[in-house]
Every structure is written in structure tokens, then in C-alpha cells.
């Protein structure tokens, strides 16, 4: 359970819930002007996103409110980048995301991408209906230590197992960690292991913490070679 929100966080949270997106973005960018992106992120945006994540998991906020939260974070990130501001811990490294073969539920994947970028990851998003070889090829090409595969339903979640098989076949398991996500994993957590996932997060907002853990695991198994 997160700490109670400060007054200004409650204001921002309220703006997001009623879809006053322009006002929410303006409030955050004014704060960036005053104190910089890193301070704004840790003091305002991050706690509000955490609150939204908790309420999303508890089904107390709607799909539309989650979508607005993602768009607010995305707009602030882009506007801040245009001003030369970098997210905290920028340069965490490349990751590759997709909805797995036959899955077309893009929202969760897009939100994960937004929140990972806000946390300093260099995200390549391959989109919907991506097969395992394409995902692993892109991870190898970009040097990603983590790939994320999303599926909404059981019938498509099982397709993620082909990513594990592809990683095994190329001897990349461990080095490249497999993050899995989507509604069905929250409702049937045992599926994470069944499809060969290395980990999952209960919501898009918790994805950055998961990716931090998976990177640490990858580096512990296969340390970076000195340049």
C-alpha cells in the first residue's frame, strides 16, 4: 500500500480521473520548469501513477482513466525531452515489447512502454501479433536484456511459450529475460511459469520495477563484459 498522497498529488490524481488531461500536463510541466523533471517525477507523477496502479488492480478505476494516465505521462515525457530534460535514471538500456502472436489488445502494452520510457528505458515496441523469432531477433539486434510479451486471454497467452522456446533454442535464456503481462496473468498467476515467463507485474505501472529486477537478474547471470 502506498503512502497517502500529498495535496498537490491529490489535485493531479483528480485531474486525471476526470480526464482534464491538458490541465494535468500543464501542472506537471510548470513543476518541471520550477524544479526539473527528476524532482517532479519523484514528488508528483510517480506517486500518482502508483496510486492509479493500485486502484487499477483493485478495479476501482476505468480503462479510460488508465488510458488518460498513460497519455499524461507520455505528453510530459515528450515535452520534457524536447526541453532537454531526461527522465530519472535515463540510459537503463534497451528493451523490446510486443503483443504476442494473435493478440491485438494494445492498450496495456502501450502503457507499459510509456511507463518504461518515463523510467529511463529505451523501448522498442513491435506492436500487435508478433511471432517469437521476430521478437528475439529484435532483442538481439538492439542488445536488449529484457523482452516483454503481452496477452489478454489464455488462448493467446499460451503463444508466449514459443518465445521461451526460441530463447532456449538460441542459448539466450537467462541473458534475455522474458517479462509477461496481460489480464489473464493477473487472474491466473500460475500461467507465468507455464508459458516460461521470468516475471510479471500486476499492472503497467509496476512494469518499471519488474524490469529493474529482471535486468539485475540478467546481469547477475551474464555480467557485462568490459569494453
Amino acid at each position, binding site marked *: 500500500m502506498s503512502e497517502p498522497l500529498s495535496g498537490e498529488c491529490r489535485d493531479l490524481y483528480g485531474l486525471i480521473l476526470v*480526464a482534464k*488531461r491538458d490541465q494535468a500536463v500543464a501542472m506537471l510541466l510548470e513543476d518541471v520548469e520550477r524544479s526539473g523533471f527528476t524532482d517532479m517525477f519523484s514528488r508528483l507523477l510517480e506517486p500518482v501513477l502508483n496510486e492509479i496502479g493500485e486502484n487499477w488492480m483493485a478495479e476501482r*478505476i*476505468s*480503462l*479510460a*482513466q488508465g*488510458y*488518460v494516465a498513460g*497519455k499524461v505521462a507520455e505528453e510530459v515525457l515528450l515535452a520534457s525531452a524536447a526541453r532537454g530534460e531526461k527522465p530519472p535514471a535515463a540510459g537503463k538500456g534497451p528493451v523490446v515489447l510486443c503483443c504476442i502472436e*494473435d493478440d*491485438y489488445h*494494445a*492498450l496495456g502494452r*502501450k502503457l507499459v512502454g510509456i511507463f518504461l520510457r518515463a523510467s529511463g528505458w529505451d523501448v522498442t515496441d513491435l506492436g*500487435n*501479433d508478433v511471432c517469437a523469432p521476430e521478437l528475439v531477433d529484435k532483442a538481439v539486434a538492439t542488445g536488449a536484456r529484457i523482452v516483454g510479451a503481452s496477452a489478454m*486471454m*489464455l*488462448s*493467446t497467452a499460451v503463444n508466449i511459450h514459443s518465445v521461451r522456446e526460441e530463447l532456449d533454442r538460441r542459448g539466450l535464456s537467462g541473458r534475455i529475460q522474458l517479462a509477461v503481462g496481460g*489480464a*489473464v496473468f493477473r*487472474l*491466473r498467476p500460475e500461467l507465468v511459469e507455464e508459458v516460461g515467463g521470468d516475471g510479471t507485474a500486476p499492472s503497467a505501472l509496476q512494469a518499471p520495477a519488474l524490469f529493474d529486477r529482471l535486468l539485475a537478474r540478467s546481469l547477475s547471470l551474464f555480467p557485462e563484459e568490459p569494453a
Partner: protein
Amino acid sequence: MTQSPEATIIACGIFRKELAALGYSHKGAEKLVCLNSMLHMRPSLLDELLDGMLRGKAQRHLLVYGDCCPHMDQFARMDGVRRVAGVNCCEIILGHDRYRELRRAGVFFFMPEWTRRWERVFKKELGFTTQETAQEFMREMHTRLIYLDTGVGEVPRDTLADIETYLGMPVEVFPVGLGQLEAALLAGLQSLNAAGDA
């Protein structure tokens, strides 16, 4: 030889009128039970309901559902239970190939029953209470909107016009008929009967 008990069809209410048009009813040879289609928005509750209806029952059941709740696969593997083919209601009504082709093209589908309840779905269930957010979301996620005209009842032109206005995209009317649904039901019942004979 013991006679197999009559089958019960448990269907999503989204198919209620289409199933009636095909001759399935609660008084028919296969008893029909339709559940509220809004359970699609509450998959855990649908799980609980189906579990209660299926577990430990001697009766045979055909599920006219897609992959709509987290344990649907386990229900469909129970003794005396089968499910029609298709990941969701749109694939059941369109058939596998056409569904995949349109879904890959970024289509969002309106089934007739949910079209009548579109305001509840979009505004209350999904929370798109502002037109601006709804329009941006649909433009970002989908390329086309298609109404699947099963031929049961009139195409609700006025409602589709309201949807077009709210979502800011045209709604195409796509005649699909009942052939794929009928074929899925027959295949499901055959599979159920074959399992009963085994």
C-alpha cells in the same frame, strides 16, 4: 445402455436473438441458458458463475462462449462439457479466417446486442465519459469500426449514427449472417455427443 442426458447450451446473452433465430430456446431439444453479456467485463464473476453451473453436474453442456474468462479452457475440458470454437463472440460469428483478417487490419467490432447498449459499454463500463478521450482512444487503437449484421433484426441506423458521432469514426455495416454461428454450434454439439458415446 444408459441414455445420455439432454444437453444444455450455456451461451453469452450477446447471442440470445441469433440463437432464437436458429431455433434454440429454453424449451428446445437442447435447453438454452443465456447469461448477461456484460459478464464479459467481469471475467472473474463469469468464472464463478460457470463453475457453479458446471462443476459436479451430470448434465452435458455446450458453452457458446469465447475465451472470455480465465478458466474457460478448464471448463471446456470437464467431463460432459465442450465449447464452440473461437476466441470471442466476433470470431464465433465471423469464422476464424475472416476474423483474423479484419482484426489484423485494426477493426473494432460491434455485435448487435452490445450496439444497443453501447453507451453503457463505453461510458459506464470503460469509463469514456468524454467524447474527446473516446475519440482519441479509438483512433489510436483501431482503424475501422464494423457492425456485424447477423440479419436478425433491423440494422439500428440511428444508434450507429450516435456511435459515429461519439467515437468520431464511421461505422461500416458488414453482413455476416448466421452460418458461422450455426456451424460452430453443430460442431460443438457433435463433439459433445461423440464424447458422450465414448
